[in-house]
């Protein structure tokens, strides 16, 4: 399954980056979301996949035994999902307010600070 996911993640990265290189701000923020999913899946995959065995310690046991999914990447991903959400919402609001002020969602219109002075 890792092999299949490797291709899926590759495509997600490609799509994310392609979207981020668009001029439209809306596409850009969606691209950011796609990149977030891709990065999380990546962590999940390189931590190796174990089908169906969540890292839960049985009611009457004290340690995990047998095969189980690696809990450490899961913890990392959980953190990343939550932060990614925060970033995404912030991005959405920022873009909305930028649109309100600048009046376009075309990034090419937004380069007033980059005009080189004499």
């Amino acid at each position, binding site marked *: 399954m890792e092999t299949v996911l490797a291709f899926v993640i590759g495509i997600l990265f490609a799509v994310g980056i392609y979207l*981020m290189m668009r001029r439209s701000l809306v596409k*850009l923020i969606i691209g*950011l979301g796609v*990149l*977030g999913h891709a*990065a999380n899946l*990546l*962590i999940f995959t*390189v*931590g190796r996949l174990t089908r169906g065995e969540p890292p839960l310690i049985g009611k009457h046991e004290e340690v995990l035994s047998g095969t189980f999914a690696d809990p*450490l*990447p899961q*913890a*990392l991903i959980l*953190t*990343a999902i939550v*932060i990614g959400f*925060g*970033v995404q919402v*912030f*991005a959405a609001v*920022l*873009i909305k*307010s*930028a649109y309100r*002020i*600048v009046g376009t969602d075309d990034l090419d219109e*937004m*380069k*007033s*600070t*980059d005009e080189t*002075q*004499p």
Partner: protein
Amino acid sequence: MFPAPPTFEDLNVWAALPVIILSLWASVLLVADRFINNKFYVAAYSLLGVGISLVIALFQAGDLFDIGESGTAFEGMFMADQFTYVVNIVALISAAIGILISYEYLERTKLDRGEYYILLMFSAAGAMLMGSSNNLSMIFISLELLSIPLYILSGIRRPQEESEESAMKYFLLGAFSSSFLVYGIALVFGAAGSLDLGEIVVVAQTISEQEATQRYLLLIGAGLITVGLGFKVAAVPFHMWTPDVYQGAPTPVTAYMSSVAKVGGFAAFLRVLVTGLPIIAEGGDAAVWVDTLQILAALTLLLGNLVAIMQYDLKRLLAYSSIAHAGYILIALAAGGVPGVGDSAAQAALVYLAAYAFTNIGAFAVVAAIEKDDSTGTTMDDIKGLAVKRPWLAGAMSVFMFSLTGIPLTAGFIGKFWVFRAAMDAGLEPLAVLGVLTSAISAFYYVRVVWNMYFETGDAVVPERQQYLTSGLVITAAGTLILGLLPFILENLVRDASLAILR
């Protein structure tokens, strides 16, 4: 075999006291802000919180009293050592001066809001955490904690278009490069099976003897982390946001972020690369990433210094200058990958950061002092004849410019000297020579600023003297000179800062 269940003492909570106090203080103030109408008090309380935290950090650094032992805290997530303490001090001093120089500026440009100071404190906490991260996931989180407040602060001057746009670009690029950081962390984890720097280094060493592929995965992971952090510290070619954002953001924010983002970014850089990934190449030579960093440093030095020459706006000039200075610290970082030089390189970087913090915040503070309420008046023409109108302001600016050039008896010289020596110790002479040559180029544009203040005549109108801003200027100018004249202060502070586990 495994340690006993952790208690409060085992977690070694007190070792992280400065950052904990700062975060809690900021959180409490966030609520209190709703009930304080006069924002002067918010600023004052913020300063008090930063001050308390700074006092504790100083005590820790000077070993004056023992609260919480040096070493890891929170089950290895947090590292409290001399390096941490120095990073804490520099970040807190930046924050304190940042608050001082902000108050009047915000008031007269009608930006005075309580959140400003709170966000500033949070980002300082982020920088401090970056310096004390002993775990890659900590580095990611503290990077976000450092960055998000800066994204907001740089866009706080609304609804001005420049500010808005630059903040947005900064944020989007930042989010983008953060995802590279996560990607890099994932790769390192995939190759090493751990996120703990102390364990990664063990893995890195053992696999370097047998498994080439895994070793280079670690290297690629390190490369991606370099992109993420390189963005934060404005290393070329990840620097493009810098001129925009520095120019668009309110000047005190620029002053503060130019220092604190570098402190945090480089602290994390040093932790990851020197402690975690000193991957030894064949034959016990330098770490493999040294070459990459050398290229980055060379590009950064050249681009920053060359493009700065033709800048007309002071904020933009200082933006390119801050890119250039990232290059000098990158030299130290590259030197840190050579076996045996890791510690002295880390110390050199710390010295440079401390010197840079005082000097650069001071330079931006002068710009804030002459800037008009409508955020104009920061060009080369506006400082013509400043020496006549405001001799002390011009004098302070000259000190900062000389220090940025690296002229002896200023802090900047001490920093450069330390860095170049580390580079020579590491056998990176070409890079050191390039550093020297680009410093020579930089003299041109820094001297031009001094020149315009003293030897040109102009009639630009400068705002009234501002009391708190002036006190910030006094501190930064005094700091720049004192560190330059009495370098042993810094020397004693950084002497015990040690990062390299492998020697």
